[in-house]
Structures are given as structure tokens and as C-alpha cells.
């Protein structure tokens, strides 16, 4: 049974050390949280997962933890809930929340905690969170533009 996402529960693992130093060239981990908002079953039955209230809570918590985030257009996915059962075909609508974090185990712990909370609240077996390693370039000011 789904329940509202709790800002207090998510904020417990917040830590200044997970923020990436954006003002210098730095290695960062880019996390993409695929927040499921709707699930449509094989029979056409629709189920709302994260509500607008949940999305707003999550947006606020991630902004407080990382100073900001990008929210990408919704993406639609489909697959079998049970790979051995062809009638378990589902269509899912997800909203990707993208955050740059410090490339340390603290960031992984933060997102593991977030994943657990989202799975509990949205009553989902798995909430996908992807991590990519990126380098944030810091260009010197181009003299001709100065």
C-alpha cells in the first residue's frame, strides 16, 4: 500500500559532503532517479504511483541536499513485471530527477537510503537509480569574451 513520501525520512541522510564542488573542475557522480508516476497494466488498469505531492516533496528534499537538480521530460517504459508471465506486460511513466553529487561512498549511501524510502512509500519492488561518473569542466575565461 503506497504512502506519502516523507521529507523528514529523506532528509535524515542529508549531508553537506554529498554536494559536488561546482566551482572547480571536478569529478562528479551524476545520479538519475526514475520516479514512477503511473503504471498501466496489460488489461488497461491505471495506477498512480508518485503523486504531485510526492514529486514536490522529493524535489524540495533534493534541492536542499544538493542545492539544485534538473527534472527531465517524462519517459515511458514497458516490460514484463514477471519475465515468465507474458500477461504481466506493463507500461510505466517515469520522471527523471538528475542530480550531481560528490563522488564518494556518502553519496551512494544517500541514494541507497532514498531508494529504500521511495520503494517503501510507492510500494515498488525496485526504483531505478542510475549513477554515471562525469567530469565537470572548468574553462578559463576566453580572453576575447572577457
Amino acid at each position, binding site marked *: 500500500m503506497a504512502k506519502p513520501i516523507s521529507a523528514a525520512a529523506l532528509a535524515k541522510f542529508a549531508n553537506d559532503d554529498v554536494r559536488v564542488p561546482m566551482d572547480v573542475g571536478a569529478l562528479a557522480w551524476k545520479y538519475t532517479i526514475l520516479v514512477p508516476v503511473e503504471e498501466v497494466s496489460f488489461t488497461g488498469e491505471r495506477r498512480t504511483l508518485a503523486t*504531485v*505531492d510526492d*514529486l*514536490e516533496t522529493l*524535489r*524540495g528534499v*533534493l*534541492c*536542499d541536499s544538493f*542545492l*539544485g*537538480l*534538473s*527534472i*527531465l*521530460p*517524462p519517459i515511458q517504459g514497458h516490460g514484463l513485471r514477471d519475465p515468465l508471465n507474458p500477461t504481466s506486460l506493463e507500461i510505466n511513466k517515469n*520522471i527523471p530527477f538528475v542530480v550531481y553529487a560528490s563522488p564518494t561512498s556518502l553519496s551512494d549511501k544517500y541514494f541507497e537510503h532514498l531508494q529504500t524510502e521511495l520503494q517503501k512509500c510507492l510500494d515498488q519492488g525496485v526504483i531505478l537509480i542510475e549513477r554515471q561518473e562525469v567530469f565537470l569542466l572548468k574553462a578559463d575565461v576566453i580572453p576575447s569574451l572577457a
Partner: protein
Amino acid sequence: MKRSTSKGAVKKTATNSKVEPTQNGIRASIHLLHIPDREARKRALQVLIDTNEMWLSLIGDKYGLSTAQVDALRRAKVPFICVSKTIADGQAD
């Protein structure tokens, strides 16, 4: 003196060289808005999802949005405060 380019892509005045962004032009602005009220932010979220474009959310309930997204919020009568915006070449207005 005012002159318009073909198809109204940009408007330029002779007295100052400021280029005004068009609504859907390639040189559109980024607007920084503040939405202090939670209920308004929830409505904004729904509107912004429907625009099918990415947006930035910043600490202090501020948003970095495109001109088209700001227009969508206006049409939906979502209350917001304009903090700043870039002009077409990316400089602060």
C-alpha cells in the same frame, strides 16, 4: 528606429543593441522564478511536466525555466515571482 528581421526571429533597436528573445526562437531566454507557495509549486509541477521540456529546480524554491515554460505557467495562472532572466546572448537582463 526599430527593424524586424524576416519571420520576426529577433527584434533589434538602433538605440541599443539589446536583442529580445522570441517565444520559441533558438535564442530564447532562461528565466529564474521564485514560487513561494507549496500549492502553487504543485500546480507548476503539473504544468511543467506537460511542457515536455527539462527544467532546473534550485534551492529556495527557485526555478530555471524557458520562455515557453514561463508562458505555460502564466496561462495556467500559477502565481510566481520573476527573479531575473537572461537576454538572448545569455547575459543578465
